[in-house]
């Protein structure tokens, strides 16, 4: 209680000392899953972390790479396998300790460790070394021209702070662990964590010692973040002025919000594709009613399911036009995307039924579908619609829709046989997709690949991408991997999401971020 009063008093002093205190009350469907910046590679988790922590390089709200904790970077002149990063001077963490190369080395090694969710992005790195206090070198296992693009969500922590609080190891979320770093934060970012109650409310106040003071607008001095899962409640909160900014205006309410005086909806295509994954690798699976066999292991069953999904109907009715149907699991933003790969499968029910028959499942089978209900736009409604569509080819689906905090561990622990997932590609390159979703699960790859798919040839091709310097050869390898993924019907793509940010008219920002990452330091307020 005294701590609460202390915090309140501190907040009061902080807000009165500023000439114009501008609070943004921000809401979206789900909360960040943890404050430990390396424990979960998930959009909303990174979004909150971006306000508190900083990476070396940032992708700003227009999608451009910008220097953050690094001022410049280049491949070493002596060795093509080494990237040299020069770090920013005079940066301090929120607790006052100085930011040095040692913190960078520590953070990257932490992000490469066993329980880290970020290691897929760093698997080409052999060594991270501090040359001096403000220079860091990254040694890769071969020349890696696109390495810096992997760093945009890799946050730097204070080595001393993690040691004092016993959080040098990354929190193991899939095993249900919680740590000091999951509920406390000490970053270099523009906002300081004032209080946090997971799933209820998180309050951030501006960091007055931020290195970017004067460089960024920093109009927002205080952020109050409240997750509101229910769509109608979230819109009601915006309409009544209870919140100022929501990241996910429900598709059915866009017209209503736009028609309200003082409110705006901004729409932009998102760098995120929604799809279904299937466990095709196991001999037998638990969640079905077929004994001794796995219906999903038969490619004809997967093809039939792919055909049965009517993406146009989902777009028109469930999404009310707010989506772009997809035929592959990478959005058009991504290097490696082609129109031919993204072409929709033929939606022919008779052919799909014939395929089911051929595979020996003419009478159908039952299976459980795991689905989140607070992560993607209309996620549960899409799953329900797909239950109906698969029912038409005899696949009887039991829907298990639950919060993302329960849903994601199912995928990471590979304990689901049929699941919904959405994937954004912050590096804008197919390698990211392959590393997480196609490569056989190993120590540093395949952590989100719950399909059981394992193909040593494909694995070798994926591993070659990091050090391939000939861009033509690299593009060809990417295309070949995509062909295999498509031929195998490894995933059932649904659509690319469209973002709908809603806010009061006084709030403005450079653009709706294609990665759905609002960064409040760029926000301006009239």
């Amino acid at each position, binding site marked *: 209680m005294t701590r609460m009063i202390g915090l309140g008093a501190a907040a009061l002093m902080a807000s009165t000392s500023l000439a114009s205190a501008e609070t943004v009350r921000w809401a979206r469907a789900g909360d960040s899953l943890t404050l430990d910046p390396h424990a979960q590679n998930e959009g909303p988790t990174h979004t909150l972390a971006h306000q508190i922590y900083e990476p070396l390089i940032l992708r700003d709200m227009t999608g451009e790479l910008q220097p953050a904790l690094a001022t410049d970077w280049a491949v070493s002149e002596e060795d093509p396998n080494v990237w040299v990063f020069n770090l920013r001077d005079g940066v301090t963490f929120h607790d006052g300790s100085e930011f040095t190369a040692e913190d960078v080395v520590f953070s990257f090694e932490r992000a490469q460790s066993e329980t880290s969710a970020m290691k897929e992005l760093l698997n080409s790195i052999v060594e991270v070394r501090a040359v001096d206090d403000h220079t860091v070198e990254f040694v890769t296992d071969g020349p890696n021209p696109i390495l810096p693009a992997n760093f945009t969500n890799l946050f730097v922590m204070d080595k001393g702070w993690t040691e004092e609080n016993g959080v040098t190891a990354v929190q193991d979320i899939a095993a249900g662990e919680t740590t000091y770093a999951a509920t406390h934060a000490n970053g270099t970012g523009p906002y300081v964590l004032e209080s946090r109650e997971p799933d209820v409310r998180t309050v951030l106040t501006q960091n007055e010692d931020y290195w970017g003071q004067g460089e960024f607008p920093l109009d927002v001095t205080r952020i109050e973040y409240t997750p509101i899962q229910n769509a109608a409640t979230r819109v009601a909160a915006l309409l009544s002025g209870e919140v100022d900014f929501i990241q996910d205006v429900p598709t*059915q309410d866009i017209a209503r919000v736009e028609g309200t005086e003082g409110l705006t909806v901004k729409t932009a295509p998102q760098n995120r594709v929604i799809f279904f994954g299937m466990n095709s690798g196991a001999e037998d699976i638990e969640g079905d009613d077929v004994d001794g066999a796995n219906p999903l292991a038969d490619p004809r069953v997967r093809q039939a399911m792919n055909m049965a999904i009517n993406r146009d109907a989902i777009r028109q*009715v*469930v999404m009310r036009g707010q989506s772009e149907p997809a035929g592959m699991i990478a959005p058009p933003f991504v290097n490696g995307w082609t129109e031919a790969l993204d072409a929709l499968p033929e939606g022919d029910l008779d052919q799909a039924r014939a395929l089911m028959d051929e595979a020996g499942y003419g009478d159908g089978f039952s299976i459980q579908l795991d689905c989140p209900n607070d992560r993607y736009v209309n996620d549960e409604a899409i799953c329900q*619609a797909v239950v*109906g569509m698969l*029912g038409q080819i005899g696949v009887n*689906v039991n829907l298990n829709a639950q919060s993302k905090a329960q849903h994601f561990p199912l995928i990471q622990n590979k304990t689901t046989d049929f699941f919904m997932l959405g994937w954004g590609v912050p590096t804008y390159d197919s390698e990211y997709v392959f590393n997480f979703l196609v490569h056989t699960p190993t120590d540093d790859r395949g952590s989100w690949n719950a399909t059981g798919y394992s193909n040593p040839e494909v694995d070798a091709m994926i591993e070659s991408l990091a050090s391939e310097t000939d861009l033509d050869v690299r593009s060809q390898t990417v295309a070949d991997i995509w062909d295999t993924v498509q031929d195998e019907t490894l995933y059932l793509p649904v659509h690319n999401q469209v973002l709908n940010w809603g806010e009061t008219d006084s709030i403005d920002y450079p653009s709706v971020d294609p990665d759905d990452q609002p960064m409040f330091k760029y926000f301006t307020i009239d």
Partner: protein
Amino acid sequence: MTDPTHIPADPHEETPLAPSAHRPSRWRAVWDGDLAWSFRRSPVALVAALVVLVMVLGAALAPLIAPYTPFDPASLNLFNGITPPFTANEFTGDYFLFGTDDQGRDVLSTILYGLRISLFVGVMAVLFAMLLGITLGLLAGYAGGWTDTVIMRVADVQLTFPSILVALLIFGVARGIVPIEHRADMAIWVLILAIGLSDWVQFARVVRGATLVQKDREYVQAARLIGRSNGAIMFRHILPNVLSPVLVIATISLALAIIAEATLSFLGVGAPPTQPSLGTLIRIGQDFLFSGEWWILFFPAMTLLALALSVNLLGDWLRDALNPRLR
């Protein structure tokens, strides 16, 4: 009903078709009785009974009379989604009296099927609460002493919690115990258990009070003298004499149980979307409140309102009709 002592000598012998033709039927006796007289005189009770009857019939006959089978995925067409009421769908031309929800399910059919769940859960929960409450109430009143003290203190403690909280607690515990793949099948039974357990106190208190009055009456003493067992005295002799207030409470409890079920389902802990009750339908419809698709919420909500109101009015009428002092 035929005479129980009448045993046809030959199975091929024709049984008399209409015994009522020869003597006043039970039906006639009830119709001429006080209760029926009061019923016929009360327009409110008549209308309420009619509404309840229509709903019970609609629920019972749902598979026969519902225009669509809303929860058979193979019969759904997503293009029928969000069709307004009283108009045909613009893509498919299908007609839906009360419109469709976002998945293309006919709202009228979902209401009919939802009523089945709501009524079933309500009736079963009240029966369960009655069974528990009457047994414990009789026991407390008849046995007295520490049995009475323990039972009634437990009842008092439970009365201090709102019943919806008790139901939520039971539901939460059950969710923890039941493995995830059985949750959908178990949900209805857990609801019945949760609502029934939160509702037994009313019955126990009333029955205990009435039992205390009855247990020193002459007929009970007589039964004791001829050596009848305590169980027989409680259930064969006292119980019939304490039942009329129980009937009133049961009716009002039914309305409350239906609402409790809707509340739990509205909070997302009750009937699952694959087997929706009225409460689940209202929860689904709530998402469309701001977008102008009022019918998805309106029709299930009005049905729940009409049902709960009618059952309540019937309960009120029954209380008045059975109370000799109000005649």
